[in-house]
């Protein structure tokens, strides 16, 4: 170990950085987790490379970088390299989920809208080549203060809006204020209106309500609503109403029933895209007709598809599968405050009926990993799946728990879900599996939007949010690189998506510890306690994290996707 280099690094770094370097040097975390976490707190790649070299490269005790992450079903790849000197020009057609509402950056709630907005608008924090966050968009650098309560983002110079005005920190401040006003699920409680100091046009200084070790994620590509929009935007502004942006593409036309056409933006700060135009064609059923279009060659790329229905693409030699890192999952919520599921034993009993491996095999032909009734994915730098024992199928125990809870004769309930991807199939499997333990469930499938409004989070009664939710249901959660949104919105007391009506002071205070934790040890400790509480109390059943699948024809190169629906094609070309 090169102590001298390490020491000099320690001297230059702030308190949070030093903790991380220490944890790595002592072998508490492996190289991969060190790099991941280092990126979040704003360590540069050369700096981290120096530390790794000083600690003896990958041969240190915690290293496992040569093997795939345990728990990921396949090597996660979210991009194809750009072809050197790829053919310039042409139109790329992308099959995209049909947006469920107006192209409103703040109010949008679906992958269809996310991707269209992200063609013109950029985020503060972008992506690196591995598909994690990186300084590739509007911020070139970020650093926390010593307790992680103030974060300073240095903005890229020379960025212009498509209308010709300059991009400044005032735009960032205005966007963040709009996000706060809209109760954005990821940042609710993290900072308040007016939190961003924009006195220096090239520095956005965030003062948070409390320490937060994961802030860069919350203002990155992975918080889709945090696209940076100009000061002139207000609540209700839409991309098609006021086309603008700092990104590589300029909106030419938008028809909600067919899609959007973008052309190269002349004012883009980065390298000019190779393609002339992109045609984002929308599909009401991307996993169905979208896949057909991809198989039939009508489109060049597809935003997302499922294993079920996508077999033809997965087995095709003309198609390149992209599977970015993903924590996408389904939550089977059970109402904890009133009704038949208010007894935790009943919730445990239902979770015990899940045949998780069979679900993974049947619904995803193995392209998913078994869940354990909490929302922490194993790829997180601060979580080890082995820390919480896996819940296995146990019908006898489930029956016992039901009878202990006073339901010897079984339980009848309606299992609600939306008509989205494999969810109705999952519902069918749950019904059949749970029947053996005495659950008499009936499925109620509705169109996704109707389901959201009627079963998952009805608007009334508004306080607390989702208190009108159905007793039992399955809801989809898209990918987030850190589980803050899942915890904050769905599980914390009064969370905006808390359809389980889960109110647990112990959970809330541990979640506060987790949010405030800035060292890797504190994060790991808090995350493990949270996962244990969730696994024990089962406000939500969580049967699997599934791979997010996207891809393009082999004629396309240089596309990068995220598990939140983005298809970035500024480096793409088509042969």
């Amino acid at each position: 170990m090169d102590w001298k280099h390490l020491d000099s690094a320690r001297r230059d770094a702030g308190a949070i950085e030093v903790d991380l370097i220490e944890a790595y040097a002592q072998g508490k975390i492996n190289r991969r987790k060190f790099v991941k976490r280092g990126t979040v707190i704003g360590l540069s790649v050369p700096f981290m490379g120096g530390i790794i070299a000083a600690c003896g490269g990958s041969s240190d005790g915690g290293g496992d970088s040569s093997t795939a992450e345990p728990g990921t079903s396949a090597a996660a790849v979210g991009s194809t390299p750009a072809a050197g000197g790829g053919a310039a020009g042409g139109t790329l057609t992308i099959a995209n989920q049909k947006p469920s509402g107006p192209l409103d950056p703040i109010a949008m709630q679906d992958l269809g809208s996310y991707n269209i907005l992200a063609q013109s608008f950029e985020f503060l924090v972008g992506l690196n080549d591995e598909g994690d966050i990186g300084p590739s968009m509007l911020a070139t650098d970020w650093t926390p203060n010593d307790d992680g309560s103030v974060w300073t983002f240095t903005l890229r110079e020379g960025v212009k809006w498509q209308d010709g005005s300059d991009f400044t920190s005032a735009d960032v401040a205005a966007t963040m204020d709009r996000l706060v006003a809209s109760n954005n699920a990821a940042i609710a409680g993290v900072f308040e209106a007016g939190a961003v100091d924009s006195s220096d046009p090239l520095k956005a200084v965030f003062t948070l309500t409390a320490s937060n070790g994961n802030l860069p994620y919350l203002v990155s590509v992975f918080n889709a609503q945090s696209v940076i929009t100009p000061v002139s935007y207000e609540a209700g502004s839409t991309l098609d109403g006021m086309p603008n942006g700092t990104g590589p593409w300029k909106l030419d036309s938008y028809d909600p029933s067919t899609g959007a056409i973008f052309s190269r933006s002349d004012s883009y700060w980065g390298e000019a895209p190779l393609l002339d135009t992109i045609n984002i064609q929308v599909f009401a059923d991307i996993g169905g007709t979208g896949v057909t279009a991809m198989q039939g060659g009508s489109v060049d790329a597809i935003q997302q598809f499922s294993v079920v229905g996508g077999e033809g693409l997965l087995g095709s030699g003309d198609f390149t599968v992209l599977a970015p890192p993903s924590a996408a999952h389904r939550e089977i919520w059970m109402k904890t405050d009133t009704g038949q599921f208010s007894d935790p034993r009943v919730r445990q009993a239902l979770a015990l009926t899940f045949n998780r491996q069979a679900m993974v095999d049947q619904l995803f032909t193995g392209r998913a990993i078994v869940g354990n009734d909490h929302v922490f994915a194993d790829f997180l730098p601060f979580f080890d799946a082995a820390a919480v024992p896996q819940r296995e199928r146990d019908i006898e125990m489930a029956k016992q728990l039901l009878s202990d809870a006073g339901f010897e004769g079984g339980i009848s309930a309606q299992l609600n879900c939306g008509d989205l991807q494999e969810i109705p199939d999952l519902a069918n499997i749950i019904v059949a599996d749970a029947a053996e333990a005495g659950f008499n469930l009936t499925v109620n499938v509705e169109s996704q939007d109707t389901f959201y409004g009627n079963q998952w989070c009805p608007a009334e009664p508004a306080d607390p949010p989702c208190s009108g939710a159905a007793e039992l249901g399955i809801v989809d959660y898209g990918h987030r690189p850190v589980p803050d949104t899942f915890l904050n919105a769905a599980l914390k007391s009064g969370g905006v998506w808390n359809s389980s009506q889960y109110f647990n002071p112990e959970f809330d205070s541990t979640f506060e510890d987790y949010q405030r934790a800035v060292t890797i040890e504190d994060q790991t400790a808090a995350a493990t306690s949270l996962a244990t509480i969730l696994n024990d109390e089962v406000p939500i059943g969580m049967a699997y994290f599934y791979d997010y699948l996207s891809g393009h024809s082999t004629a396309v190169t240089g596309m990068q996707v995220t598990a939140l629906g983005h298809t970035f094609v500024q480096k793409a070309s088509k042969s």
Partner: protein
Amino acid sequence: MLGFVIRRLALSIITLVILITIVFLITSVFPDDPGRSLAGPFASQEVVDSINERIGANDPKGEQYFRLVKNTITFDFGDSFQFNRPVSETLFPALGRSSKLVALGLIMTLPLALMGGIIAARRKDTLIDRGIVTLGLASSSIPEFVSGVALQYVLAVKLGWFEAVAAPNRGFFGELKFLMLPAFAIVIVYFGYIARIARAGTIQALDADFTRTAYMKGLSSRDVIRKHVLRNSLQPTVAVVGTQIGYLFGGLVGLEVIFNYQGLGNLIYNAAREQDYPMLQAGVILVAIIFMICTLIADLIIAWMNPRARLNVRS
């Protein structure tokens, strides 16, 4: 003839007013407040209230009814709940797309079906006749979403001859490449039906006195068919085609869903799923208007072909 047209138009307008009333009665029983549908489940109650105020959901029912009538006359239905932009911006492009599909479907169906019907009539009660009639009955019994999927799989995915789903913004020939498949599906559904009508009309015309007279005058069989039978046998076919065109504009929901074709059927289907009432009302009324125009034109053609029919519209 002019009198006939005026009477016929007046009848259509009365029918339209009744239809608007029916649509109003169905949709004015709003299941939940439209402001909530528009603003989404997370909006505050003030936002919802202000939207309800703006779109007039709180107005007296009578006022709402007259607004719907006025909207129909001006064809301005306000903003769609789903897209937050004027209904007409989405509706008229969809109408254009539906027209293309309907036109192509008819161009492919009519000659085939007429030929089939006439051949069957001339060979009445032979194996050919029974074959055509039974084939027609069977093919029109297959739901169009089933035949559509089969065509998609074989002709597009397996053989690669056509585009599997709609690909907008591709120019005339580009669009033809994917419109062919749904048009084939229309042929499968409508061939049997139209052939049956044409067959029945031809049989009746063949039995008619004027045909016997023509034969007696020594005209060749081909001339008789061309000059006398065709003209008369086509009348019922025209009437039926007129009504069916109207239905084709909005009734191909399953087919449009399968091919991701954004015609009127798909638009109205999605509006129903999303409870987008302005779009639903506008779409349904538009389909009804198209239907009335098509049947009107069919009636005019029949009246032109057969003056006797002009007397059949009540004053």
